[in-house]
């Protein structure tokens, strides 16, 4: 019997945590009990960055987290984090399941990471307490909290906003006191963090699409028998398939809940979305200084098909 310890940083009720359970059941069934999975969801073993360090060092087998935690080891991943890249989640997964995904997996493998699949964290949308966002001009001067990531910060500077970095634990009270005007997250997180209590306007900006990925330690994975490796890969395919369907199903539910809580929801018209994309095209160019230009061109080409 081999014990596989798997960590995750999503809350108990999140679809990624559900996927961890699907993986456990499937892998134990497929390996005939030869592999035993111990899941540690909801940051039980520490935050996402710490889980990644544990997995990299081989203290745990695998981690469910956002690809954002790998971009500083594998910069290629930043190419799929470009603003206004995907029009739909179907497109996003089509790209990730094709040659782009293969290329990313290879880059991850070179760093000692076996990528087992890409799930959905979701489109990120902006909320704020000042005005409805429907046009490019509406972003002007808004103080918006962003994750500490260069592409993210540059994107909002290009849109004319005033990006701020702040720990997520401080965010609610900063919004409440109007120290900041807005923030951006998937609907799910806007709801579970109760930002609707302190934010009036919600727009479907969908400016970034975030992927979840499941990554295993290469040495630990290689130490499994070929049959067990196949069991792990196959179980993870089921888990990821389940997670994608579940995330898609609940995404709109969360948006409806936010509206039911009293937020004003505005759609970005197609021609304005085109202007937003236009305003941020320079980001891809400046990213070419850090990331192989061929990778970026491939991603842009695949996403545009």
């Amino acid at each position, binding site marked *: 019997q081999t014990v596989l310890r798997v960590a995750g940083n999503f809350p108990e009720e999140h679809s990624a945590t559900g996927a961890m359970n699907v993986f456990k059941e499937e892998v134990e069934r497929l390996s005939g009990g030869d592999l035993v999975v111990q899941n540690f969801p909801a940051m039980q073993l520490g935050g996402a960055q710490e889980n990644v*360090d544990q997995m*990299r*060092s081989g203290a745990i087998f695998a981690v469910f987290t956002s690809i954002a935690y790998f971009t*500083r*080891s594998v910069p290629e991943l930043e190419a799929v984090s470009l603003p206004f890249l995907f029009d739909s989640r179907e497109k996003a997964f089509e790209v990730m399941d094709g040659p782009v995904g293969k290329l990313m997996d290879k880059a991850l493998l070179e*760093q000692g990471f076996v990528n087992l699949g890409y799930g959905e964290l979701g489109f990120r949308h902006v909320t704020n307490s000042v005005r409805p966002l429907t046009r490019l001009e509406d972003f002007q001067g808004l*103080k918006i909290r962003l994750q*500490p*990531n*260069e592409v993210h*910060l540059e994107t909002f500077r290009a849109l004319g906003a*005033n*990006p*701020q*970095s*702040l*720990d997520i634990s401080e965010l609610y009270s900063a919004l409440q006191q109007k*120290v900041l005007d807005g923030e951006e997250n998937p609907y799910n997180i806007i709801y579970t963090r109760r930002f609707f209590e302190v934010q009036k306007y919600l727009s479907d900006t969908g400016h970034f699409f975030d992927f979840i990925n499941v990554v295993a330690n290469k040495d630990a994975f290689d130490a499994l028998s070929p049959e067990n490796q196949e069991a792990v890969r196959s179980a993870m395919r089921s888990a990821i398939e389940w997670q994608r369907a579940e995330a898609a199903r609940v995404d709109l539910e969360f948006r409806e809940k936010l509206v039911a809580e009293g937020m004003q929801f505005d759609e970005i018209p197609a021609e304005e979305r085109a202007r937003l994309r236009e305003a941020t095209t320079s980001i891809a160019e400046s990213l070419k200084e850090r990331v192989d230009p061929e990778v970026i061109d491939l991603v842009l080409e695949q996403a545009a098909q």
Partner: protein
Amino acid sequence: MSDPGHPSPGPAAAGTLAMLRRAVDLTDALSRWLIVAAMAAMTLLISAQVFHRYVLSSSIDAADELSRLFFVWSIFLAIPHGIRRGVHVGIDIVLRLMPGQAQDLLQRASALAGLLLMAVVFVTALGAAADKWGELMPTLPVTAALYYIPVCICALHSALHLLLFALGGPEIWGDDAWKETAS
């Protein structure tokens, strides 16, 4: 090591022990300046961030991350100084019931236990730093292993102090325990 207020002159250390004591003292002086610099940088960065947000309506992208980095450095570098001063609290009730000789022996034994812990921390922290070498900090183009380096230094420096206690006894610093610069 729980009663910082009763320093007495340390034993007249001689030979190797005296050299070790002197070496540790110099290391402490160097480390003290690193701590002062890290603490000052941390304080300045946080203050500057507040100033930027309220007065200039802007933000320093790396302020949060850099200030945490300086904080981690300050804390881990300062732990060995706490050991020297014996400010790390312990239960001394059993200790005080023993005769002087046994007290001394037990204190040296617990210094050795601490030394063992620090050795494990040092080796594993080096491993953690090496594992993380290829990863950059989120907002800065420098290796994220910088977070683990103070843990390595802390373990090594603490081990030196504990070795000195194990060899020279708990009173090795005497009245010099609280002194802040090398003599």
